[in-house]
């Protein structure tokens, strides 16, 4: 598979076309905005956190296929996870995107999200894929400043 085919896999294109949990959440108790000043991509992540568990998660915003698909897959993965598990996944995904995670560990560390690992071959696009993750990280920490990829 070419690097480009690896980047734009069917699953990623599908999440881009029909993003999951792409909505505002009226009863969210955590919310954070993420912003990539380099390209203007913008995402808002909504969370309903109960007893340290992510009961519901959604997002809105505009961005490229990679950022949208990454955000969509992220919401699907994080729903039902507790804060510690979400935090661990954030770290693992971040390492995968920057090419710092060994290939044979990806399954155990990020599961289905390994489909995004092709991004690390495109340095200019790493921030597209990590934007939503930085944003959910900020939401979990209850930060009021918009998250950025810088």
């Amino acid at each position, binding site marked *: 598979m070419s*690097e*480009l085919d690896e980047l*734009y896999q069917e699953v990623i*294109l599908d999440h881009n076309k029909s993003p999951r949990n792409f909505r505002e959440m009226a009863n969210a108790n955590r919310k954070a905005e993420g912003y990539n000043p380099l*390209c203007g*991509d913008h995402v808002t992540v909504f969370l309903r956190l109960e007893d340290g568990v992510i009961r519901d998660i959604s997002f809105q915003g505009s961005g*490229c*296929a990679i950022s949208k698909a990454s955000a969509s897959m992220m919401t699907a993965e994080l729903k039902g996870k507790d804060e510690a598990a979400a935090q661990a996944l954030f770290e693992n995904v971040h390492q995968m995107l920057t090419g710092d995670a060994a290939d044979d560990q990806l399954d155990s560390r990020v599961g289905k999200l390994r489909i995004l690992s092709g991004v690390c071959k495109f340095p*200019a696009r790493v921030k597209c894929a990590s934007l939503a993750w930085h944003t959910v990280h900020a939401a979990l920490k209850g930060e009021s400043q918009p998250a950025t990829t810088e």
Partner: protein
Amino acid sequence: MLMKAVTQKNDPTMRQNKFDVTRIREDFPILKEKVHGKPLVYLDNGATSQKPQAVIDALNHYYSAENSNIHRGVHYLSEQATAAYEAARGKVREFLNARADKEIIFVRGTTEAINLVAQSYGRSFLNAGDEIIVSAMEHHSNIVPWQMLCEQVGAKLRVIPINHDGEIVMEEFRRLLGDKSKLVSVTHVSNALGTVVPVKEIVALAHQRGVPVLLDGAQAVPHLKVDVQDLGCDFYAFSGHKMFGPTGVGVLYGRAELLEKMPPYQGGGDMISLVTFEKTHYNVLPYKFEAGTPHIAGGIGLGAAIDYLAALDWHEVAAHEHRLLSYATAALSDIEGLRIIGTAKDKAGVLSFVFDHVHAHDVGTILDQEGVAVRAGHHCAMPVMQRFGVPATTRVSFAFYNTIEEIDVLVGAIRRVLKVFS
């Protein structure tokens, strides 16, 4: 040198080419490079242009044979370097048809030139309630320095709207011009849309009310012949690297009468004539505005770029660029779902477009895999993106060394984007 976007794609003259682009390309060594195994198709000239061998040689020669500091050595090399640097200033004067060398200030680039005017002219002559007029299609570097000035002196920024084609609405400009107007600062050619702005008319209208005008010429000088006396502008700013010269050097042209009145922008060496702890006397123009050791090699390299451009037949260059823009406009218009942003009657060198279902970044990445370099994003002109209701565009920007064949490669690469996202 204006180019008009036309869309008669079956025009048989479009493929005829009197201009010997093959020979021109030989002058630019980077154009032989391959990217991802494919021949480089460089269509990001609005971001920075490539450099002819003559410019690379000038830099090399300066560092190999002339390197020394200017305006201070009594030794041979310093005299050589000073002469070369000041000769470059003379070339810039001629390039812009300014009246005198002292009206040519070397700066780091367009951004620094505009900041210089904002901080020196603006802080001295603008007061609370005064108004600065810019257009809705400015680069951030012609917005933010004025916003900073507004915060400092209590002035207000007023914005001339643009129409749906990306042209300045002149009636609105006339309406905005008033007793409070103290400065007009507009782009000559829009970096995001390619619009050629009727700057001569803008200058004339502003001058009727005694309002000075700064023109941001960063995107104009690679495409148009600029004559500051004919335009009548008070300041003209441009960067070396977008007109085939080195990065890190640019020019502020200012009418001597205004520059004389303005205080220095930065303090330091070279900009003084006498320093004591009680009082410092500033140097004469242009040195008053050139504190510290300048980018000597850059200035000399810019001079070499101007020599290179002067040797070209600019009627042929303009005709060739017109052909590129017309051909590309027609070819891209044929692609289903593609929408061109910026459809002004007079355009130079830029073709911006969007797809409803494919983001510019994805377009940019896929084109890159085909060896095609374009810019994807907001082009440091976020208000333009907001005006057209798009988050980003893909921008194709030409130089005279581009070819019709390269546009065919671009079109093929865009078709691949659509295949990936079908």
